[in-house]
């Protein structure tokens, strides 16, 4: 259910894919609740505020967020940079390799020294890139602050991009890219994003392709770092068991003198495609016994005023276990272990995608049923009872989304990057409750694409080819060929 990119950590067979996804998002920490509000609001369903935090800018422009959370003796530190795969240009995988390479050594520490020091303390750390952002995160026992924070500073300010370590990582990534194609569920999103966004940066495969990765060297990573890891565009978020005053001074001492070496290069994202017809991409995996499928269209950006309202309607359509999609495909028809829909939201755009999987012979039965559900919500809208239930579900589960220092740190980082504020939390309940049956009709018509849909099917093409063309202009690929 959970995708582990490198090493498989086995988990028990779990009943539901959807609830599991919800639970996986529910990482946690205590939310301190202003007393006054509680007494008024607490009677029915609780509402709550984001715990108090301090936000300030250093002289070099780096934005810092400090939030105390004393439930456990741990501190979570995250740095966020606007350096995701959308900036890869003609080198897919560059943002990812650059983020990885931050941990390959610094002016003062070799790669192995960074690992020895952090891991001796029981710290957990990683660097990552996703479509729009990149980052480094570390969590550790609060007593180890003085050992970890200077090292963290080194990693983000003085990486050396050691060519030997870079080549080693590249070699492993090349094999991982082939291995990834052996797990269709791991690559469905990448195929779909590429098919939907085309040459726009949002179509870039985060981990790159074998052809592109071959061409990336440590110098490219260094140049990418200099162009996109800049204090004035970045944020440092610290959540956990510390005192704000001393932490503020520590942060000022360590991070104020970081200057970016390079010049900001204008980002070329390309144009968002306007699809004038339905298209279907059939990806052949000749030994498949099941088909993974996704279809959808362009969605909304993260800052769209309807963001929360769309989430309410999507909860009804495909965002929980009793959603229309899961009810139809799984619970009533027994065709699949799970069916869902989601909105992936970015700065400038987003995607709407319905996805599921089923045995090869049931492929079109399942696709047709999913399409019928989408058409039904357009035709019939959402009834009062279902809407009320979806609202209660979102409100009731909301506190579990911000229960941990890690999830609070992610929220603060998102607030920085997407430019929203804590009213997202404090007004959440009001915004959810403000969605009426009438409003859902508007929302569905405006934000839930049903025409000119883009489809991706990964499965046994021999048995799917004949009918696949009925859904749109047919394109075909081999899963084993490089690229997406």
């Amino acid at each position, binding site marked *: 259910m959970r995708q582990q990119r490198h090493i498989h950590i086995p988990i028990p067979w779990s009943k*539901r894919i959807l609830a599991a996804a919800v639970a996986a998002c529910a990482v946690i920490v205590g939310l301190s609740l202003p007393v006054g509000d*509680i007494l008024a609001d607490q009677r029915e369903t609780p509402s709550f505020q984001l715990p108090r935090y301090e936000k300030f800018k250093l002289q070099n422009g780096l934005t810092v967020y400090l939030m105390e959370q004393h439930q456990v003796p741990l501190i979570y530190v995250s740095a966020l940079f606007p350096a995701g795969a959308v900036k890869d240009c003609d080198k897919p995988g560059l943002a990812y390799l650059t983020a990885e390479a931050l941990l390959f050594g610094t002016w003062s520490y070799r790669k192995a020294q960074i690992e020895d020091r952090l891991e001796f303390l*029981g710290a957990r750390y990683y660097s990552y890139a996703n479509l729009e952002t990149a980052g480094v995160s570390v969590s550790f026992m609060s007593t180890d602050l003085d050992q970890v924070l200077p090292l963290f500073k080194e990693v983000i300010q003085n990486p050396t991009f050691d060519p030997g370590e870079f080549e080693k990582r590249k070699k492993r990534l090349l*094999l991982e890219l082939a291995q990834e194609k052996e797990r269709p569920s791991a690559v469905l999103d990448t195929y779909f994003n590429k098919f939907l966004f085309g040459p726009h940066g949002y179509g870039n495969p985060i981990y790159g392709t074998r052809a592109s990765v071959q061409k990336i060297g440590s110098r490219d990573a260094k140049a990418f770092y200099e162009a996109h890891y800049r204090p004035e565009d970045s944020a440092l978020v610290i959540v956990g068991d510390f005192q704000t005053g001393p932490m503020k001074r520590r942060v000022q001492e360590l991070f104020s003198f970081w200057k970016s070496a390079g010049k900001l290069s204008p980002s070329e994202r390309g144009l968002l495609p306007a699809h004038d017809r339905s298209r279907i991409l059939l990806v052949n995996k000749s030994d498949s016994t099941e088909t993974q499928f996704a279809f959808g269209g362009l969605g909304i950006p993260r800052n769209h005023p309807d963001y929360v309202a769309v989430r309410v309607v999507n909860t009804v359509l495909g965002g*929980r*276990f009793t959603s229309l999609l899961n009810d139809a495909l799984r619970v009533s028809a027994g065709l699949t272990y799970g069916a869902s829909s989601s909105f992936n939201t970015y700065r400038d755009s987003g995607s709407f995608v319905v996805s599921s999987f089923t045995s090869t012979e049931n492929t079109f039965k399942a696709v047709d049923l999913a399409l019928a559900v989408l058409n039904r919500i357009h035709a019939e809208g959402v009834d009062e009872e279902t809407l009320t239930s979806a609202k*209660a579900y979102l409100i*009731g589960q909301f506190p579990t989304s911000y229960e941990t220092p890690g999830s609070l740190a992610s929220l603060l980082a998102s607030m920085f990057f997407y430019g929203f504020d804590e009213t997202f939390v404090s007004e959440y309940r009001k915004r959810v409750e403000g969605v009426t049956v009438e409003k859902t009709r508007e929302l569905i018509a405006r934000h839930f694409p049903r025409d000119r849909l883009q489809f991706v099917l990964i499965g046994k093409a021999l048995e799917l080819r004949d009918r696949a063309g009925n859904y749109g202009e047919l394109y075909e690929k081999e899963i084993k060929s490089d690229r997406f």
Partner: protein
Amino acid sequence: MKRILSILSVLWFLACAAPLHALTAEDVHMFSLKNGMKFYVLEDHAIPNVTLQIFFKVGSRNEGPGMTGLTHFLEHMMFNGARKYGPKMFDRVLESAGGASNAYTSADVTAYQDWVPNSALALIFEMEADRMENLALDERIVESERGVVLSEYTTGYENSDYDLLEDQLRAVVFYAHSYRWPVIGFESDIRNWTRADVKEYFDRHYAPNNAIAVVVGDVTLAQVKTLAEKYLERIPARMPPRPVHTREPEQRGEKRLIVHKDVSSPHVLIAYHVPQTGAADYYALDLLSTILSDGNSSRLYRALVSERQLATGVSAYMYEALDPTLFYVYAVCAEDISAKTLEGAIFGEIERVVADGVTEIELRKAQNNAVASFWRSLLTISDKADRIGTYEIFYGGYQKLFAAPEIYRKVTAEDIRTVAAKTFTKNNRTVGILQKDEVQ
């Protein structure tokens, strides 16, 4: 009720302001119902939510040939209708009340997890009692749910080479114990058990005296007690299921297997017999797994991945288990590296531990990790309930959860060397390799 909530809310703010570093076993309250069902309650007012997690002491190890996968299938059927709350109602009513649920099945236990706002506390007790007492097992739904589980079966193997290899390997490692079959069952068994089989299995294992419940969150012990007595105490105790008495005989020689699949590089999975979770050697073995593969500074990662570049990843681990179980080492070959080369390198590292033991620094590192992991495992109310229930079932009592950092601290480097020497013998191991069929 409203008054109680208002008063609680004030406490709740105060509780939040105080660090919970002092969380101890004394904060967990235990009580038993007359029917033998045990409850463990931890009041935690950080968020206005509650989790109820019920663990039935039944897993695939309780199944027999022809009935594999039945435990997991029954877990699915628990969501498909009882007496008061009919088909589809469990999830609909729960989600309408702001709740969510999930469940999982392992070789040893089946656990049901409900997460609700505190306003829905009584409701989940009522619904859990309904399905525990009067599960419907509608014939038509048994058939549609069979399709769901077949999809789960297919998608599991289609998307995980690891699952394929581990399931095949266990069947070779164990020749007597029921750990040898997969939790999801064999496809032919999934297709063939009947409603009567499921019903009989339910009656045998889902008695209140075969379950424990953990409640963590914005509740009081008194509230939980009242609700448990009201809804669950009337369910009669039943004859406890027969214990699994099969013990795996000592292995008498290395076992090997090869599984063919069109993978881009070979996978190597090695398993050694070890005692059950919580046994005397467990903690030393657990620290050893950290030293071997936790993080990039671990022995296996540094030697095989970073330095010699023989593998893309490597992992050493055990699952929690009630009966003697396995210590696994899993690695995937780097490009153009054969399984034989990687296997040899893994054995080289393991033999080094047996011969020379581990360093004091490695031991301290593993112990520091155990302490930090302890806190990381208690970040949410759901984590806390899961750990309390898991320790109660597997480790000889929930108190062991809170004692764990101290127990790990007492393990010595010599303990680790001794347990390594005892475990890592050739006769005690099974080696599984997943690779392309070169003949094709």
